[in-house]
Protein backbone atom coordinates (compact mmCIF):
# COMPACT_ATOMS: atom_id res chain seq x y z
CA UNK A 1 0.00 0.00 0.00
CA UNK A 2 1.62 3.20 -1.16
CA UNK A 3 1.59 6.35 0.88
CA UNK A 4 -0.39 8.11 -1.81
CA UNK A 5 -3.29 5.63 -1.58
CA UNK A 6 -6.54 7.45 -1.08
CA UNK A 7 -8.68 6.25 1.77
CA UNK A 8 -12.39 6.53 2.27
CA UNK A 9 -14.66 5.59 5.14
CA UNK A 10 -18.42 5.38 5.36
CA UNK A 11 -20.53 5.11 8.47
CA UNK A 12 -23.87 3.38 8.02
CA UNK A 13 -26.06 4.08 11.03
CA UNK A 14 -29.46 3.74 9.36
CA UNK A 15 -31.21 0.62 8.19
CA UNK A 16 -33.56 1.94 5.55
CA UNK A 17 -33.22 0.96 1.90
CA UNK A 18 -32.35 4.46 0.75
CA UNK A 19 -29.65 4.82 3.40
CA UNK A 20 -27.98 1.50 2.57
CA UNK A 21 -27.11 2.39 -0.98
CA UNK A 22 -25.02 5.56 -0.74
CA UNK A 23 -22.13 3.78 0.97
CA UNK A 24 -22.46 0.66 -1.18
CA UNK A 25 -22.63 2.48 -4.52
CA UNK A 26 -19.96 5.08 -3.82
CA UNK A 27 -17.73 2.65 -1.93
CA UNK A 28 -17.87 0.10 -4.73
CA UNK A 29 -17.03 2.71 -7.37
CA UNK A 30 -14.14 3.95 -5.25
CA UNK A 31 -12.85 0.41 -4.75
CA UNK A 32 -12.80 -0.08 -8.53
CA UNK A 33 -10.72 3.05 -8.77
CA UNK A 34 -8.06 1.92 -6.34
CA UNK A 35 -9.26 3.67 -3.18
CA UNK A 36 -9.02 1.94 0.21
CA UNK A 37 -12.60 1.69 1.41
CA UNK A 38 -13.83 1.00 4.93
CA UNK A 39 -17.49 0.82 5.86
CA UNK A 40 -18.59 0.92 9.49
CA UNK A 41 -21.99 -0.48 10.36
CA UNK A 42 -23.51 0.64 13.60
CA UNK A 43 -26.91 1.15 15.25
CA UNK A 44 -29.71 0.47 12.73
CA UNK A 45 -27.07 0.20 10.02
CA UNK A 46 -26.40 -3.29 11.38
CA UNK A 47 -29.51 -4.38 9.50
CA UNK A 48 -27.56 -3.90 6.26
CA UNK A 49 -25.19 -6.72 7.22
CA UNK A 50 -27.75 -9.00 8.84
CA UNK A 51 -28.48 -11.76 6.36
CA UNK A 52 -32.07 -12.01 7.47
CA UNK A 53 -32.65 -8.29 6.98
CA UNK A 54 -30.40 -7.05 4.17
CA UNK A 55 -32.70 -7.96 1.29
CA UNK A 56 -35.79 -6.79 3.17
CA UNK A 57 -34.79 -3.21 3.90
CA UNK A 58 -37.61 -0.76 3.33
CA UNK A 59 -38.28 2.86 2.60
CA UNK A 60 -41.28 4.61 4.18
CA UNK A 61 -42.99 7.53 2.45
CA UNK A 62 -44.17 9.00 5.76
CA UNK A 63 -42.12 12.00 6.81
CA UNK A 64 -39.93 11.70 3.73
CA UNK A 65 -40.10 15.10 2.05
CA UNK A 66 -38.02 13.88 -0.89
CA UNK A 67 -40.67 11.39 -1.97
CA UNK A 68 -42.93 12.97 -4.57
CA UNK A 69 -46.18 11.88 -6.17
CA UNK A 70 -44.33 11.76 -9.51
CA UNK A 71 -42.42 8.73 -8.21
CA UNK A 72 -45.74 6.94 -7.96
CA UNK A 73 -46.45 7.61 -11.61
CA UNK A 74 -48.61 10.68 -10.99
CA UNK A 75 -47.46 13.67 -13.04
CA UNK A 76 -47.35 16.33 -10.35
CA UNK A 77 -43.81 17.67 -10.28
CA UNK A 78 -43.24 18.91 -6.76
CA UNK A 79 -46.28 17.60 -4.98
CA UNK A 80 -45.21 15.37 -2.14
CA UNK A 81 -46.86 12.19 -0.97
CA UNK A 82 -49.19 13.37 1.81
CA UNK A 83 -48.25 11.89 5.17
CA UNK A 84 -51.88 10.95 5.61
CA UNK A 85 -51.63 8.77 2.50
CA UNK A 86 -48.29 7.41 3.66
CA UNK A 87 -49.83 5.90 6.77
CA UNK A 88 -52.18 3.69 4.77
CA UNK A 89 -51.42 -0.02 5.04
CA UNK A 90 -49.14 -1.15 2.23
CA UNK A 91 -47.67 2.26 1.44
CA UNK A 92 -44.24 1.37 2.78
CA UNK A 93 -44.26 -1.86 0.79
CA UNK A 94 -45.32 0.07 -2.31
CA UNK A 95 -42.60 2.70 -1.94
CA UNK A 96 -40.06 -0.05 -1.36
CA UNK A 97 -41.18 -1.92 -4.46
CA UNK A 98 -41.00 1.24 -6.55
CA UNK A 99 -37.47 1.97 -5.40
CA UNK A 100 -36.35 -1.61 -6.03
CA UNK A 101 -37.93 -1.59 -9.52
CA UNK A 102 -36.19 1.66 -10.33
CA UNK A 103 -32.83 0.33 -9.19
CA UNK A 104 -33.26 -2.90 -11.11
CA UNK A 105 -33.98 -0.86 -14.24
CA UNK A 106 -30.75 1.05 -13.65
CA UNK A 107 -28.75 -2.14 -13.17
CA UNK A 108 -28.07 -1.53 -9.48
CA UNK A 109 -27.65 -4.86 -7.68
CA UNK A 110 -29.57 -5.84 -4.53
CA UNK A 111 -27.83 -5.28 -1.19
CA UNK A 112 -26.83 -8.93 -0.72
CA UNK A 113 -25.22 -9.04 -4.15
CA UNK A 114 -23.19 -5.98 -3.33
CA UNK A 115 -21.81 -7.83 -0.34
CA UNK A 116 -20.94 -10.88 -2.44
CA UNK A 117 -18.98 -8.61 -4.81
CA UNK A 118 -17.47 -6.87 -1.83
CA UNK A 119 -16.19 -10.04 -0.19
CA UNK A 120 -14.75 -11.49 -3.40
CA UNK A 121 -12.93 -8.22 -3.94
CA UNK A 122 -11.71 -8.28 -0.35
CA UNK A 123 -10.36 -11.81 -0.80
CA UNK A 124 -8.15 -10.75 -3.69
CA UNK A 125 -6.97 -7.49 -2.23
CA UNK A 126 -6.76 -5.78 1.10
CA UNK A 127 -8.50 -2.65 -0.01
CA UNK A 128 -12.01 -3.34 1.12
CA UNK A 129 -12.98 -3.76 4.71
CA UNK A 130 -16.03 -3.35 6.81
CA UNK A 131 -16.50 -3.31 10.53
CA UNK A 132 -19.39 -3.42 12.86
CA UNK A 133 -19.54 -1.79 16.22
Amino acid sequence: MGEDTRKMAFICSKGTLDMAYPALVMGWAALGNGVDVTIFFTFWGLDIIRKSRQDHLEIAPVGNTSMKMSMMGVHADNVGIPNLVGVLPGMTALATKLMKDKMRALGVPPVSEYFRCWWTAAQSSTRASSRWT
Partner: protein
Amino acid sequence: MIRSIAGQAVHVNEEGFLTALDEWNKDIAAEIAKEEGIAELTPAHWKVIEWCRANAVNGRSPTLRQITEGTGISTKEMFALFPKGPAKKVARIAGLGKPEGCV
Protein backbone atom coordinates in the same frame (compact mmCIF):
# COMPACT_ATOMS: atom_id res chain seq x y z
CA MET B 1 -0.85 17.20 -23.21
CA ILE B 2 1.24 14.95 -25.41
CA ARG B 3 3.55 12.23 -24.19
CA SER B 4 5.41 9.38 -25.79
CA ILE B 5 4.28 5.82 -25.09
CA ALA B 6 5.85 2.83 -26.87
CA GLY B 7 7.62 5.18 -29.25
CA GLN B 8 4.43 6.96 -30.26
CA ALA B 9 3.30 10.46 -29.39
CA VAL B 10 -0.20 10.35 -27.92
CA HIS B 11 -2.60 12.79 -26.28
CA VAL B 12 -3.19 12.15 -22.58
CA ASN B 13 -5.09 13.96 -19.84
CA GLU B 14 -3.65 14.99 -16.46
CA GLU B 15 -4.29 11.53 -15.02
CA GLY B 16 -2.46 9.79 -17.86
CA PHE B 17 -5.54 8.51 -19.71
CA LEU B 18 -5.42 8.54 -23.51
CA THR B 19 -7.87 11.06 -24.89
CA ALA B 20 -8.02 9.99 -28.55
CA LEU B 21 -9.54 6.55 -29.20
CA ASP B 22 -7.68 5.95 -32.46
CA GLU B 23 -4.24 6.65 -31.01
CA TRP B 24 -4.37 3.43 -28.99
CA ASN B 25 -2.66 0.22 -30.02
CA LYS B 26 -1.58 -3.01 -28.32
CA ASP B 27 2.00 -1.85 -27.73
CA ILE B 28 0.72 1.22 -25.95
CA ALA B 29 -1.59 -0.98 -23.87
CA ALA B 30 1.31 -3.21 -22.84
CA GLU B 31 3.41 -0.24 -21.81
CA ILE B 32 0.64 1.40 -19.79
CA ALA B 33 0.00 -1.98 -18.14
CA LYS B 34 3.64 -2.04 -16.99
CA GLU B 35 3.20 1.42 -15.49
CA GLU B 36 0.17 0.04 -13.64
CA GLY B 37 2.22 -2.85 -12.28
CA ILE B 38 1.02 -5.55 -14.67
CA ALA B 39 4.15 -7.11 -16.15
CA GLU B 40 2.49 -9.08 -18.90
CA LEU B 41 -0.95 -8.94 -20.49
CA THR B 42 -2.39 -12.46 -20.68
CA PRO B 43 -5.27 -13.59 -22.94
CA ALA B 44 -7.64 -12.97 -20.00
CA HIS B 45 -6.43 -9.37 -19.79
CA TRP B 46 -6.93 -8.93 -23.53
CA LYS B 47 -10.42 -10.36 -23.36
CA VAL B 48 -11.38 -7.66 -20.86
CA ILE B 49 -9.55 -4.89 -22.72
CA GLU B 50 -11.09 -5.75 -26.07
CA TRP B 51 -14.56 -6.12 -24.60
CA CYS B 52 -14.24 -2.71 -22.97
CA ARG B 53 -13.11 -1.07 -26.19
CA ALA B 54 -15.97 -2.66 -28.09
CA ASN B 55 -18.50 -1.56 -25.46
CA ALA B 56 -17.21 1.91 -24.65
CA VAL B 57 -19.78 4.68 -24.70
CA ASN B 58 -18.50 8.11 -25.72
CA GLY B 59 -14.96 6.88 -25.25
CA ARG B 60 -15.60 5.92 -21.63
CA SER B 61 -14.96 2.46 -20.27
CA PRO B 62 -17.88 0.33 -19.03
CA THR B 63 -18.33 0.00 -15.26
CA LEU B 64 -16.94 -2.94 -13.29
CA ARG B 65 -20.33 -4.59 -13.10
CA GLN B 66 -20.94 -4.21 -16.83
CA ILE B 67 -17.56 -5.80 -17.48
CA THR B 68 -18.19 -8.80 -15.22
CA GLU B 69 -21.64 -9.34 -16.72
CA GLY B 70 -20.50 -8.82 -20.30
CA THR B 71 -17.35 -10.93 -20.26
CA GLY B 72 -18.34 -13.58 -17.70
CA ILE B 73 -15.14 -12.81 -15.80
CA SER B 74 -15.87 -12.70 -12.07
CA THR B 75 -15.31 -9.76 -9.78
CA LYS B 76 -12.67 -11.76 -7.96
CA GLU B 77 -10.78 -12.45 -11.19
CA MET B 78 -11.01 -8.79 -12.15
CA PHE B 79 -9.31 -7.81 -8.90
CA ALA B 80 -6.68 -10.49 -9.52
CA LEU B 81 -6.04 -9.47 -13.14
CA PHE B 82 -5.98 -5.75 -12.45
CA PRO B 83 -5.10 -5.44 -8.75
CA LYS B 84 -5.91 -2.31 -6.77
CA GLY B 85 -8.60 -0.62 -8.79
CA PRO B 86 -9.65 -2.74 -11.80
CA ALA B 87 -12.16 -0.23 -13.21
CA LYS B 88 -9.60 2.51 -13.43
CA LYS B 89 -6.75 0.30 -14.61
CA VAL B 90 -8.70 -1.36 -17.40
CA ALA B 91 -9.86 2.02 -18.63
CA ARG B 92 -6.34 3.38 -18.73
CA ILE B 93 -4.81 0.32 -20.39
CA ALA B 94 -7.62 0.16 -22.95
CA GLY B 95 -7.07 3.80 -23.86
CA LEU B 96 -10.52 4.81 -22.62
CA GLY B 97 -11.86 7.35 -20.14
CA LYS B 98 -12.85 6.38 -16.62
CA PRO B 99 -16.31 4.79 -16.39
CA GLU B 100 -19.13 7.23 -16.10
CA GLY B 101 -21.43 5.29 -13.78
CA CYS B 102 -20.81 4.10 -10.26
CA VAL B 103 -22.21 0.59 -10.45
